Protein backbone atom coordinates (compact mmCIF):
# COMPACT_ATOMS: atom_id res chain seq x y z
CA UNK A 1 0.00 0.00 0.00
CA UNK A 2 3.06 2.25 -0.25
CA UNK A 3 2.75 2.95 -3.97
CA UNK A 4 -0.30 4.06 -5.96
CA UNK A 5 -0.48 2.48 -9.40
CA UNK A 6 -3.21 4.72 -10.86
CA UNK A 7 -5.67 7.48 -9.85
CA UNK A 8 -8.72 6.41 -7.86
CA UNK A 9 -9.04 3.39 -5.61
CA UNK A 10 -6.33 0.76 -6.31
CA UNK A 11 -7.47 -2.87 -6.26
CA UNK A 12 -4.27 -4.12 -4.61
CA UNK A 13 -2.12 -7.21 -5.31
CA UNK A 14 -4.75 -9.78 -4.21
CA UNK A 15 -6.74 -8.93 -7.37
CA UNK A 16 -3.78 -10.15 -9.49
CA UNK A 17 -4.31 -9.68 -13.21
CA UNK A 18 -7.03 -7.00 -12.84
CA UNK A 19 -4.68 -4.81 -10.76
CA UNK A 20 -1.95 -5.11 -13.43
CA UNK A 21 -4.17 -4.21 -16.40
CA UNK A 22 -5.78 -1.39 -14.38
CA UNK A 23 -2.45 0.45 -14.13
CA UNK A 24 -2.29 0.95 -17.92
CA UNK A 25 -6.03 1.25 -18.66
CA UNK A 26 -6.81 3.75 -15.91
CA UNK A 27 -3.78 5.86 -16.85
CA UNK A 28 -5.02 6.02 -20.44
CA UNK A 29 -8.46 7.06 -19.25
CA UNK A 30 -6.83 9.63 -16.94
CA UNK A 31 -5.12 11.24 -19.97
CA UNK A 32 -8.49 11.37 -21.73
CA UNK A 33 -10.14 12.98 -18.67
CA UNK A 34 -7.43 15.65 -18.57
CA UNK A 35 -8.23 16.56 -22.19
CA UNK A 36 -11.90 16.77 -21.21
CA UNK A 37 -10.86 19.07 -18.34
CA UNK A 38 -9.34 21.45 -20.91
CA UNK A 39 -12.65 21.58 -22.83
CA UNK A 40 -14.54 22.44 -19.64
CA UNK A 41 -11.87 24.94 -18.58
CA UNK A 42 -12.10 26.80 -21.90
CA UNK A 43 -15.92 26.76 -21.88
CA UNK A 44 -15.74 28.32 -18.40
CA UNK A 45 -13.34 30.98 -19.69
CA UNK A 46 -15.76 31.65 -22.59
CA UNK A 47 -18.60 31.97 -20.09
CA UNK A 48 -16.63 34.45 -17.97
CA UNK A 49 -15.94 36.57 -21.08
CA UNK A 50 -19.57 36.41 -22.29
CA UNK A 51 -21.37 36.67 -18.93
CA UNK A 52 -21.80 40.46 -19.18
CA UNK A 53 -23.33 40.39 -22.68
CA UNK A 54 -27.05 40.29 -21.87
CA UNK A 55 -28.32 41.87 -25.12
CA UNK A 56 -31.29 43.29 -23.18
CA UNK A 57 -32.34 39.78 -22.15
CA UNK A 58 -32.67 38.31 -18.64
CA UNK A 59 -29.52 38.15 -16.45
CA UNK A 60 -28.30 35.66 -13.86
CA UNK A 61 -30.31 37.20 -11.01
CA UNK A 62 -33.61 36.76 -12.85
CA UNK A 63 -32.79 33.25 -14.11
CA UNK A 64 -30.77 31.39 -11.43
CA UNK A 65 -32.17 29.99 -8.22
CA UNK A 66 -29.85 29.16 -5.33
CA UNK A 67 -31.87 26.43 -3.59
CA UNK A 68 -31.98 23.84 -6.44
CA UNK A 69 -28.30 24.49 -7.24
CA UNK A 70 -27.39 23.82 -3.60
CA UNK A 71 -29.39 20.58 -3.61
CA UNK A 72 -27.75 19.54 -6.92
CA UNK A 73 -24.30 20.22 -5.42
CA UNK A 74 -25.11 18.04 -2.40
CA UNK A 75 -26.50 15.26 -4.65
CA UNK A 76 -23.25 15.08 -6.67
CA UNK A 77 -21.10 15.20 -3.53
CA UNK A 78 -23.12 12.40 -1.90
CA UNK A 79 -22.91 10.31 -5.08
CA UNK A 80 -19.10 10.73 -5.06
CA UNK A 81 -19.09 9.30 -1.51
CA UNK A 82 -21.43 6.41 -2.35
CA UNK A 83 -19.43 5.62 -5.51
CA UNK A 84 -16.34 5.37 -3.29
CA UNK A 85 -18.22 2.86 -1.12
CA UNK A 86 -19.21 0.90 -4.25
CA UNK A 87 -15.54 0.62 -5.23
CA UNK A 88 -14.52 -0.38 -1.69
CA UNK A 89 -17.29 -3.02 -1.79
CA UNK A 90 -15.87 -4.33 -5.08
CA UNK A 91 -12.33 -4.42 -3.69
CA UNK A 92 -13.01 -6.30 -0.44
CA UNK A 93 -16.01 -8.52 -1.20
CA UNK A 94 -15.89 -11.29 -3.81
CA UNK A 95 -19.70 -11.19 -4.01
CA UNK A 96 -20.88 -8.06 -5.86
CA UNK A 97 -24.00 -7.40 -3.71
CA UNK A 98 -22.56 -4.41 -1.77
CA UNK A 99 -21.03 -2.91 -4.87
CA UNK A 100 -24.34 -3.18 -6.77
CA UNK A 101 -26.34 -1.54 -3.96
CA UNK A 102 -23.93 1.42 -3.63
CA UNK A 103 -23.69 1.76 -7.41
CA UNK A 104 -27.49 1.91 -7.66
CA UNK A 105 -27.57 4.56 -4.92
CA UNK A 106 -24.93 6.60 -6.81
CA UNK A 107 -26.83 6.33 -10.10
CA UNK A 108 -30.10 7.31 -8.39
CA UNK A 109 -28.48 10.43 -6.87
CA UNK A 110 -26.94 11.37 -10.23
CA UNK A 111 -30.25 10.88 -12.07
CA UNK A 112 -32.06 13.10 -9.55
CA UNK A 113 -29.30 15.67 -10.21
CA UNK A 114 -29.92 15.49 -13.98
CA UNK A 115 -33.70 15.71 -13.46
CA UNK A 116 -33.38 18.81 -11.26
CA UNK A 117 -30.99 20.39 -13.74
CA UNK A 118 -33.42 19.83 -16.66
CA UNK A 119 -36.16 21.35 -14.48
CA UNK A 120 -33.89 24.40 -13.93
CA UNK A 121 -33.41 24.79 -17.69
CA UNK A 122 -37.17 24.58 -18.31
CA UNK A 123 -37.79 27.21 -15.60
CA UNK A 124 -35.13 29.42 -17.20
CA UNK A 125 -36.63 29.01 -20.66
CA UNK A 126 -40.02 30.01 -19.22
CA UNK A 127 -38.48 33.33 -18.13
CA UNK A 128 -37.02 33.95 -21.59
CA UNK A 129 -33.64 32.37 -20.80
CA UNK A 130 -33.11 30.49 -24.07
CA UNK A 131 -29.70 29.92 -25.75
CA UNK A 132 -30.33 32.38 -28.62
CA UNK A 133 -31.38 35.25 -26.31
CA UNK A 134 -27.85 36.56 -25.57
CA UNK A 135 -24.14 35.77 -25.52
CA UNK A 136 -24.42 35.12 -21.79
CA UNK A 137 -27.08 32.46 -22.33
CA UNK A 138 -25.34 30.89 -25.35
CA UNK A 139 -22.18 30.34 -23.32
CA UNK A 140 -24.25 29.14 -20.32
CA UNK A 141 -26.02 26.51 -22.43
CA UNK A 142 -22.72 25.42 -23.99
CA UNK A 143 -21.17 24.79 -20.55
CA UNK A 144 -23.76 23.57 -18.03
CA UNK A 145 -25.80 21.10 -20.14
CA UNK A 146 -22.54 19.61 -21.47
CA UNK A 147 -21.74 18.64 -17.88
CA UNK A 148 -25.30 17.28 -17.51
CA UNK A 149 -24.83 15.14 -20.63
CA UNK A 150 -21.58 13.80 -19.15
CA UNK A 151 -23.42 12.83 -15.95
CA UNK A 152 -26.15 11.13 -17.99
CA UNK A 153 -23.53 9.22 -19.99
CA UNK A 154 -21.84 8.13 -16.75
CA UNK A 155 -25.20 6.78 -15.51
CA UNK A 156 -25.68 4.80 -18.74
CA UNK A 157 -22.15 3.43 -18.32
CA UNK A 158 -22.97 2.40 -14.72
CA UNK A 159 -26.10 0.57 -15.92
CA UNK A 160 -24.01 -1.14 -18.62
CA UNK A 161 -21.61 -2.34 -15.89
CA UNK A 162 -24.59 -3.73 -13.93
CA UNK A 163 -25.62 -5.57 -17.12
CA UNK A 164 -22.09 -6.96 -17.49
CA UNK A 165 -22.21 -8.24 -13.90
CA UNK A 166 -25.57 -9.89 -14.58
CA UNK A 167 -24.17 -11.72 -17.63
CA UNK A 168 -20.49 -12.35 -16.83
CA UNK A 169 -20.28 -11.91 -13.03
CA UNK A 170 -17.67 -9.77 -11.28
CA UNK A 171 -14.78 -10.50 -13.67
CA UNK A 172 -11.61 -8.50 -14.42
CA UNK A 173 -13.27 -6.49 -17.23
CA UNK A 174 -15.99 -5.32 -14.86
CA UNK A 175 -13.43 -4.41 -12.20
CA UNK A 176 -11.27 -2.25 -14.48
CA UNK A 177 -14.45 -0.75 -15.97
CA UNK A 178 -15.58 0.27 -12.48
CA UNK A 179 -12.19 1.89 -11.81
CA UNK A 180 -12.45 3.97 -15.00
CA UNK A 181 -16.07 4.91 -14.32
CA UNK A 182 -14.91 6.02 -10.84
CA UNK A 183 -12.41 8.40 -12.45
CA UNK A 184 -15.18 9.89 -14.63
CA UNK A 185 -17.58 10.10 -11.67
CA UNK A 186 -15.19 12.01 -9.40
CA UNK A 187 -13.95 14.12 -12.31
CA UNK A 188 -17.52 15.28 -13.05
CA UNK A 189 -17.91 16.36 -9.43
CA UNK A 190 -14.70 18.41 -9.79
CA UNK A 191 -16.09 20.09 -12.94
CA UNK A 192 -19.27 20.89 -11.01
CA UNK A 193 -17.18 22.73 -8.35
CA UNK A 194 -16.04 25.05 -11.14
CA UNK A 195 -19.57 25.45 -12.51
CA UNK A 196 -21.31 26.29 -9.22
CA UNK A 197 -18.46 28.63 -8.21
CA UNK A 198 -18.18 30.56 -11.48
CA UNK A 199 -21.71 30.38 -12.90
CA UNK A 200 -24.06 30.22 -9.92
CA UNK A 201 -22.21 31.85 -6.98
CA UNK A 202 -20.53 34.25 -9.42
CA UNK A 203 -23.96 35.13 -10.85
CA UNK A 204 -25.87 35.45 -7.59
CA UNK A 205 -23.30 36.90 -5.15
Amino acid at each position, binding site marked *: *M*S*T*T*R*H*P*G*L*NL*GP*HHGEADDTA*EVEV*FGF*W*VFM*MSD*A*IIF*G*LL*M*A*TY*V*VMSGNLNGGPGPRELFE*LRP*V*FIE*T*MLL*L*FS*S*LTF*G*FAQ*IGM*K*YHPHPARMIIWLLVSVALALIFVGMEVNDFITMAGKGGIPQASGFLSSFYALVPLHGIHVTAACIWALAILGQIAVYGLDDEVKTGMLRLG*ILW*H*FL*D*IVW*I*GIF*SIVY*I*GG*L*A
Partner: protein
Amino acid sequence: MTDKAAEKRKEQLSYALGFGYALLLTVPLFASVAFDWLDRSTLLWITGVAAILQIVVHFRFFLHIRLKGQTKEDLQLILFTTLVIGVMGLGTIWVIFNLMSRM
Protein backbone atom coordinates in the same frame (compact mmCIF):
# COMPACT_ATOMS: atom_id res chain seq x y z
CA MET B 1 -7.20 -10.68 7.18
CA THR B 2 -6.76 -8.03 9.87
CA ASP B 3 -4.42 -6.13 7.54
CA LYS B 4 -7.14 -6.07 4.92
CA ALA B 5 -9.73 -4.88 7.44
CA ALA B 6 -7.41 -2.07 8.55
CA GLU B 7 -6.79 -1.03 4.94
CA LYS B 8 -10.52 -1.04 4.23
CA ARG B 9 -11.18 1.14 7.29
CA LYS B 10 -8.45 3.53 6.16
CA GLU B 11 -9.96 3.82 2.68
CA GLN B 12 -13.48 4.35 4.01
CA LEU B 13 -12.08 7.06 6.28
CA SER B 14 -10.41 8.71 3.26
CA TYR B 15 -13.74 9.06 1.44
CA ALA B 16 -15.54 10.21 4.61
CA LEU B 17 -12.84 12.81 5.31
CA GLY B 18 -12.96 14.09 1.74
CA PHE B 19 -16.74 14.35 1.98
CA GLY B 20 -16.48 16.27 5.27
CA TYR B 21 -13.90 18.74 3.95
CA ALA B 22 -15.94 19.25 0.76
CA LEU B 23 -19.03 20.05 2.86
CA LEU B 24 -17.04 22.56 4.93
CA LEU B 25 -15.84 24.25 1.74
CA THR B 26 -19.30 24.36 0.11
CA VAL B 27 -22.08 24.98 2.64
CA PRO B 28 -20.76 28.33 4.03
CA LEU B 29 -20.51 29.72 0.48
CA PHE B 30 -24.14 28.95 -0.34
CA ALA B 31 -25.21 30.22 3.11
CA SER B 32 -23.31 33.45 2.50
CA VAL B 33 -25.14 33.98 -0.82
CA ALA B 34 -28.52 33.06 0.69
CA PHE B 35 -28.24 35.30 3.78
CA ASP B 36 -26.15 38.07 2.21
CA TRP B 37 -23.31 37.87 4.76
CA LEU B 38 -20.54 39.34 2.62
CA ASP B 39 -20.21 41.92 -0.13
CA ARG B 40 -19.79 40.68 -3.70
CA SER B 41 -16.03 41.05 -4.22
CA THR B 42 -15.09 39.49 -0.85
CA LEU B 43 -17.40 36.55 -1.51
CA LEU B 44 -15.98 36.02 -5.02
CA TRP B 45 -12.40 35.92 -3.70
CA ILE B 46 -13.38 33.47 -0.93
CA THR B 47 -15.29 31.34 -3.47
CA GLY B 48 -12.23 31.20 -5.74
CA VAL B 49 -9.95 30.06 -2.91
CA ALA B 50 -12.55 27.56 -1.58
CA ALA B 51 -13.07 26.10 -5.08
CA ILE B 52 -9.34 25.50 -5.56
CA LEU B 53 -9.06 23.95 -2.08
CA GLN B 54 -12.07 21.73 -2.77
CA ILE B 55 -10.60 20.57 -6.09
CA VAL B 56 -7.40 19.62 -4.21
CA VAL B 57 -9.52 17.78 -1.60
CA HIS B 58 -11.31 15.81 -4.32
CA PHE B 59 -8.02 14.89 -6.01
CA ARG B 60 -6.46 13.82 -2.72
CA PHE B 61 -9.29 11.93 -1.00
CA PHE B 62 -11.50 10.68 -3.88
CA LEU B 63 -8.92 10.18 -6.64
CA HIS B 64 -6.04 9.32 -4.25
CA ILE B 65 -3.51 11.56 -5.99
CA ARG B 66 -0.48 11.98 -3.75
CA LEU B 67 2.74 13.91 -3.99
CA LYS B 68 4.94 10.80 -3.78
CA GLY B 69 4.80 7.06 -4.41
CA GLN B 70 2.90 6.93 -7.70
CA THR B 71 4.09 4.66 -10.49
CA LYS B 72 2.68 6.83 -13.30
CA GLU B 73 2.72 10.55 -14.05
CA ASP B 74 -0.80 11.25 -12.74
CA LEU B 75 0.11 14.39 -10.80
CA GLN B 76 2.31 15.77 -13.59
CA LEU B 77 -0.65 15.44 -15.96
CA ILE B 78 -2.87 17.43 -13.60
CA LEU B 79 -0.21 20.13 -13.32
CA PHE B 80 0.27 20.24 -17.12
CA THR B 81 -3.51 20.42 -17.67
CA THR B 82 -3.72 23.21 -15.09
CA LEU B 83 -0.96 25.04 -16.95
CA VAL B 84 -2.76 24.67 -20.32
CA ILE B 85 -6.09 25.81 -18.83
CA GLY B 86 -4.27 28.68 -17.12
CA VAL B 87 -2.53 29.88 -20.28
CA MET B 88 -5.53 29.46 -22.62
CA GLY B 89 -8.34 30.28 -20.16
CA LEU B 90 -6.80 33.22 -18.33
CA GLY B 91 -5.24 34.34 -21.63
CA THR B 92 -8.70 34.42 -23.24
CA ILE B 93 -10.17 36.38 -20.34
CA TRP B 94 -7.26 38.84 -20.31
CA VAL B 95 -7.20 39.47 -24.07
CA ILE B 96 -10.97 39.77 -24.54
CA PHE B 97 -11.52 42.08 -21.55
CA ASN B 98 -8.58 44.20 -22.70
CA LEU B 99 -10.23 44.39 -26.13
CA MET B 100 -13.62 45.28 -24.61
CA SER B 101 -12.12 48.12 -22.56
CA ARG B 102 -10.68 49.60 -25.77
CA MET B 103 -13.95 49.50 -27.74
